[in-house]
């Protein structure tokens, strides 16, 4: 109790110094919380974009198709059967499923041509799995059996299309023969998923199938579950029932490269935190050495009166812990305020990228919001206090080991 009192008194003895040292820690924690919040926010939004607009929670495709799916091949397609669909429907947490057919298209406006992805969608089911219709900014979804198409505002702008214009889709059928669709643009969407806005054209599945001469074949099923967290176990469960060549893939498999990238980012954040807190630790060491030098005579006297070395070290450590707690609390308060501002206003991605559409590889655009995680608050607070205590050990030992006589007459 005595050490605690003394440590507290020492803290209040030089209020300004204590405050400045604590501020270093507070800022380190603030930076960490903000970075982490931004990361969590971007991760969540990216995952949501992928799930809501690109992959759903689960996808079922043939293994051989999945491997080359980026090439948009027309072989290894699935011929839908009731048996397969029944199996899919039995998945735990199953909510809805839809059929999609992806193919490679050259979008033509009479002057230029642009390679894009054509996506045939099952209009009745698609909205139960994907949220594309929510992001329509003009017009409506295509009608079943028509040659109506929808595309991103960004793509339309690039190709000089307006709602109501006709676009020529040029593609090769499964026999490599050219075919075209004169697609009437009936809707424009603006999703938070940039690549979808820039390079996808959606049309009714039946139209795509008949023009590609693939009968009723599809490239994959997309499935929505009731809970996002169920995706990985549900994929495993479904795979135990699916026969080769069919295979179920969770959204994490679909976004493999993004998941890997985010893991790397996470390590990066930790490294930044470590560097900042190391700098803060230098500040603590400095503070402890200063107060020890100041109190040299005092320490000598206390030792002469019978205080143990250990007890002196404790006093200093407690003092440092105090600085850590003050800094940590300030940091967390500042962080919470920062995140709150961040969350109310959001950060405009285009401001970060100087008005451009660079997204640093994240499938998101527009305004982003930070995420919260209580665990990371607790972690960073404890980490701050721990670093403070650790930094004080050596200067405290140095001071405590002084000979009392020399300490008293240390001049």
């Amino acid at each position, binding site marked *: 109790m005595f050490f605690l009192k003394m440590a507290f008194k020492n803290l209040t003895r030089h209020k300004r110094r204590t405050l400045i040292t604590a501020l270093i820690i507070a800022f380190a924690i603030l930076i960490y919380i903000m970075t982490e919040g931004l990361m969590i926010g971007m991760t969540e939004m990216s995952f949501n974009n992928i799930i809501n607009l690109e992959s759903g929670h689960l996808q079922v495709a043939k293994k051989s198709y999945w491997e080359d799916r980026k090439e948009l091949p027309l072989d290894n397609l699935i011929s839908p059967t009731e048996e397969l669909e029944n199996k899919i429907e039995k998945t735990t947490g199953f909510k809805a499923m839809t059929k999609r057919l992806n193919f490679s298209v050259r979008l*033509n406006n009479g*002057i230029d*041509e642009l390679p894009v992805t054509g996506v045939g969608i099952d209009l009745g089911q698609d909205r139960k799995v994907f949220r594309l219709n929510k992001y329509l900014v003009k017009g409506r979804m295509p009608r079943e059996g028509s040659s109506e198409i929808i595309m991103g505002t960004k793509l339309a702008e690039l190709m000089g299309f307006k709602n109501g214009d006709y676009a020529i889709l040029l593609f090769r059928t499964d*026999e*490599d023969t*050219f075919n*075209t669709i004169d697609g009437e643009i009936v809707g424009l969407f603006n999703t938070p998923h940039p690549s979808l806005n820039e390079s996808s054209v959606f049309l009714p599945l039946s139209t795509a199938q008949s023009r590609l001469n693939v009968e009723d074949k599809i490239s994959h099923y997309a499935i929505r579950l009731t809970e996002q967290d169920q995706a990985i176990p549900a994929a495993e469960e479904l795979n135990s029932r699916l026969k080769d060549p069919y295979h179920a893939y969770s959204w994490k498999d679909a976004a493999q490269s993004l998941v890997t990238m985010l893991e790397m980012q996470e390590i990066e954040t930790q490294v930044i935190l470590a560097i900042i807190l190391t700098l803060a630790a230098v500040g603590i060491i400095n503070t402890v050495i200063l107060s020890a030098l100041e109190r040299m005579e005092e320490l000598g006297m206390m030792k002469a009166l019978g205080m143990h070395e250990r007890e002196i070290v404790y006093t200093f450590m407690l003092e440092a812990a105090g600085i850590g707690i003050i800094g940590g609390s300030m940091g967390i308060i500042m962080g919470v305020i920062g995140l709150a501002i961040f969350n109310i206003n959001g950060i405009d991605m285009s401001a970060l990228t100087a008005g451009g559409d660079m997204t640093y590889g994240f499938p998101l655009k527009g305004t982003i919001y930070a995420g919260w995680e209580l665990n990371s608050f607790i972690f960073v607070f404890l980490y701050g206090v721990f670093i403070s205590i650790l930094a004080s050990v050596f200067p405290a030992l140095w001071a405590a080991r002084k000979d009392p006589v020399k300490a008293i007459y240390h001049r």
Partner: protein
Amino acid sequence: MFALMRNSERSYQLKILLIISLLSILLVGITFLAAAQELTADEIITRRDQNEYVIKAYSESKMIIKNSGRTMVKTMRSWQDGEKALVVFTNPRDRGTKFLKRGDNLWMFFPQAEDLVKISGHMLEQGMMGSDFSYQDMLESDDLTELYNFKLLGEEKYKGRPVYKLEGIKVPGKEVSYYRRVVWIDKERFVGLKEELYAESGRLLKEAVVLEVDKIEGRWYPVRMIMENKLRKNTSTEFIIQKINFNPELPEDIFTLERLR
């Protein structure tokens, strides 16, 4: 007397000979005409290909590419031997750029970067050097009668020349780029004068028009043609053969990747 007799005998023989030869010419002519009239669509295509399909050749040519008001002129030298072909560009801007075709494979060599690139996948769909000929067009095999069912649509006049108008529809199951093609073939010279290439939906994709044919080494050959991509406005590619030699001495190893570098 003897000589006179011999002389009259000779003149008699000559007469017979003349009659026979005249008859035979007439006969050949008639059969030829009859045959020409009864040529099937496939035979017409084959006879055109005999003229146009080159097995071995050396040529010097020029390509005038027009794209939205911009004009580019490219000159090239090319060597061909069956399935293999080499094109070397000679205009200042592209000097040293080379294409090598071996069967179904196509490579491109850029001299500045000293880089060798195999053209595959989506790149095959691009226009070659910015022209309206795609790389895929360069690779496609020329044996059209196997890939298309040809039908004679009629005989008409095209730019003052009598022509056959034929239509080819893709044979089901064959992998070809164009679903339907319509060709106008000169009835006497068996050279294609115009060709339209259609998509399965019926949309006209490309149109090739021959502007000039020339008799080279005994065969009629198109030496100036213009290709238009009908899906894109204001683009055309004119192809002019300035010199062609059908029986050249080809340097050894000319069609190898080693020589390309």
